[in-house]
């Protein structure tokens, strides 16, 4: 029997509640494929999510999952990892959840370099509450609370995480399925904090207000806006306005938080 992605889902919860053409379903599939490749047992995986459209993802997956409060997925995940460092903890957050409400938790999880894998579904707006702008809404794009276009600068979450100390930072889109799966697999294998930004699309609340009314238009926009980082490094492509790099953006080695803590416990006991 060939691999069936829905074997990782709680069957009674499907079909999911996301809108027709919503990219969250595609990201969730890539996550399930990554879990299949990682070959973890169901008992060692914990999936923690916050609040928002994307954070409903945890409820669909047939693992030990926690659906926590808004922006606080990372503190819950930190506690879970700390209590049992052997667990593989994945955190699913939306862009508003991660960068705005839980912004401080994100930078401090990066700074601590705790062994979590955070997957951030970036749909550029607050989808569930009706399309208000988020810190990730690109400049000049429209949202219900920015009817004349966004005038604030948007966050580059990957650069933020890199500066804050995350040891594995990558970005992919729903168009780049295989890349996203690879980044999640590598991020999970990385010993330290891994942040993977999954650029997804919200045709209902974001696309319709920004001349991308159909899911097809939005995926085409991703295809045209995303530039592979390897191509930029080789000098075969450069970033134009409105484009963003995808691929493995940053990786470095640093001491991991739970390992360091156990070291301290050992030292204290020797005294």
């Amino acid at each position, binding site marked *: 029997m*060939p691999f069936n992605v829905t074997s990782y889902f709680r069957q009674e919860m499907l*079909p*999911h509640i*996301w809108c*027709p053409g919503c990219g969250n*379903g*595609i990201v969730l599939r890539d996550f399930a494929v990554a879990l299949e490749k990682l070959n973890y047992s169901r008992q060692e995986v914990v999936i923690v999510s916050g609040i928002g459209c994307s954070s409903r993802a945890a409820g669909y997956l047939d693992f030990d999952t926690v659906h926590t409060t808004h922006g606080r997925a990372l503190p819950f995940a930190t506690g879970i990892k700390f209590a049992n460092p052997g667990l593989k903890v994945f955190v699913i957050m939306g862009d508003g959840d991660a960068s705005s409400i839980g912004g401080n938790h994100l930078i401090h999880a990066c700074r601590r370099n705790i062994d979590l894998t955070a997957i951030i579904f970036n749909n550029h707006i607050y989808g569930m509450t009706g399309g208000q702008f988020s810190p990730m809404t690109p400049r000049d794009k429209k949202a219900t609370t920015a009817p004349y276009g966004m005038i604030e600068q948007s966050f580059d979450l990957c650069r933020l995480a890199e500066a804050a100390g995350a040891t594995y930072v990558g970005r992919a889109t729903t168009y780049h*399925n295989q890349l996203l799966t690879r980044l999640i697999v590598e991020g999970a294998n990385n010993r330290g904090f891994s942040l993977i930004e999954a650029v997804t699309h919200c045709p209902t609340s974001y696309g319709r207000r920004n001349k991308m009314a159909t899911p097809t238009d939005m995926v085409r926009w991703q295809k045209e806006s995303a530039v592979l980082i390897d191509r930029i490094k080789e000098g075969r492509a450069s970033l134009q306005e409105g484009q963003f790099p995808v691929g493995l953006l940053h990786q470095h080695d640093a001491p991991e938080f739970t390992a360091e803590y156990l070291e301290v416990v050992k030292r204290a006991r020797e005294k």
Partner: protein
Amino acid sequence: MTPLQTEHNPKASLDVNIKWCKGCNLCVTVCPKGVLSLDDLGKVSVDKPEECIGCGLCEETCPDYAIRVVKDA
């Protein structure tokens, strides 16, 4: 998953779960061979099963897990 519409050809068979299809049109757009289309109810239908090359793009792109490409052994 109940295969409601199963088409067989030498290269691959498509399991389409119409109940989960929300008619977003993504699979129709990504298919390089024009195998799929939306029917009168706006749900996916397999128009040209004999053209399918089993690339799996529709399965990867479907946000609702309504379509599966099963490659024949």
